[in-house]
């Protein structure tokens, strides 16, 4: 029990951060018309591509003689880029159609 309490007080800032982010996420989506659900889902899909930041960070720390790690890191950055670029471009294509005539 005490260790759990310690963990909470140690990571207090982080816990606040997470909780507030959850509420922001809910708030941002609330009241969105059905019309925009697909583009919104696609846009959110592009944003979780931020995982690429982690992939780049790992890659920058890789030992250059560790070929397996280099290969995995390359693949991770590649997949992350696909998620980010593909996600934003396809969302833009959907939204382009909503422009007022």
């Amino acid at each position, binding site marked *: 029990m005490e260790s759990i309490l310690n963990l909470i007080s140690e990571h207090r800032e982080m816990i606040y*951060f997470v909780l507030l982010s959850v509420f922001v996420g809910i708030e941002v989506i609330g009241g969105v018309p059905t019309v925009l659900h697909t583009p919104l*889902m696609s846009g959110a899909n592009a944003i979780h*591509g*931020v*995982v690429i930041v982690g992939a780049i*960070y790992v*890659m920058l720390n890789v030992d250059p003689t560790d070929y397996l790690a280099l290969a995995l890191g390359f693949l*991770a950055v590649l997949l992350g880029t696909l*998620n980010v670029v593909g996600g934003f471009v396809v969302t833009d294509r959907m939204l382009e159609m909503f422009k007022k005539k």
Partner: protein
Amino acid sequence: MKSALLELSYLIGSVTFIVGLKMMGNPKSARKGNLLGAAGMTIAILGTIFLFEKKTEDGVLIADHVVPGIIYALIFGAILLGTIVGWLTAKKVQMTKMPELVSMFNGMGGACAALIGLMEYQHNLHHTGALATIIAGMVIGTVSFSGSIIAYLKLNGTMKQPIRLPQYNVINTIVMAGVVLFGAWVVMTAPSMTFLYLLFAVAIVYGILFTVPIGGADMPVVISLLNSFTGLAAAFGGFLYDNKIMLTGGILVGSAGTLLTLVMCKAMNRPLSNVIFGAFGGGNAAEGSSAISGSIKDINVSDTAVLMNYSKKVVIVPGYGLAVAQAQHVIHELETILEERGVEVKYAIHPVAGRMPGHMNVLLAESNVSYDKLVEMEDINPEFPSTDVVLVVGANDVVNPAAHNDPSSPIYGMPILDVENASHIIVNKRSMSAGYAGIENELFFNPKTSMLFGDAKDVLTKLVAEIKSL
């Protein structure tokens, strides 16, 4: 200095994500919102690459550390390749294929998170806390990856029928418990890499088992759910590196995606547990509804043309069949010509019409239908009694009255478009086969209903020509 700048770039990125997503909630600002998010992402990525400082395991800065050129080459190579392939795929895909593409991109993000876990494991064997976030991120990312691939295969038609092992709910629950226990054991004992790969493999299997039994009609919900999974996996990466932008981006998508999933479930009037564990199509479809009998009435193109031409108000109900037949441009032509003749035309959009919520809106917007003509279900339902003709094109389950009056039907309780309140109902279908959920539709046997058989694009083109000649 560098690290302060990096934090600043992450702060800017996080704000653009939040503001961008908010702007995407309004048709007018949506496109700018998306571009804003993309700009923030670019800043964050460039910051990560160029403001990098190497630290020891205890977080002490290593001065004068130079990252080997080969690593930069690989990073830029991967980004360049990914940009070209991602850009071209996204630009070239047909609008009807979009749901599966979103699913595929989602899977890529999940795989990226999983790979980070595979690479970081060995560096963190002695930190139980870090190991827990690594394993959680890896498992969730992996499930999202293999689940998304299955969703992709289902949506593009490679995998047509839901595959159900006997007692699949029991098997799935056991496998899920197995993954959780195995993961916890790996965190506690930090075994060799072999076990990590084994965990990776088990997570892949679970992702497949999780998605495989879910019927096609529920795929939008599944994609949305897997989307929030990937967000969660990214957030775990944020915990690991104490990286604020991965945390904001990940959690934002995680919570927004979960809410979106629930909104979709609500539109279908089914609890989420019912989507995941429930039965749609497959076994249930064969029961209950095959008892419908009666006669159906045919109508030809010229009679339809006359009927529509002399109506006051026509409501079009588009469904996935419209998308498949690529008939969105012809239907807009039909709308224009009817409007010219003084007929009021509206589109009735069911929240889950098509393969994703809002799919029909996107598709019709592509052919320049103005979005104030697209009316949502709650607003159009009271208008049906004053509607002369309803034209159902390639939609089925969303107009199935069994949702109101057949408690044994799997879609019982789902809100539908009450088209039977209109004076005439014309249903365009290719054949009498059942809808995506695999259930019969008694609407077709309604005395007010006439069936206009044929390929949607073909029939509508003829219909437009016929009306023009009147």
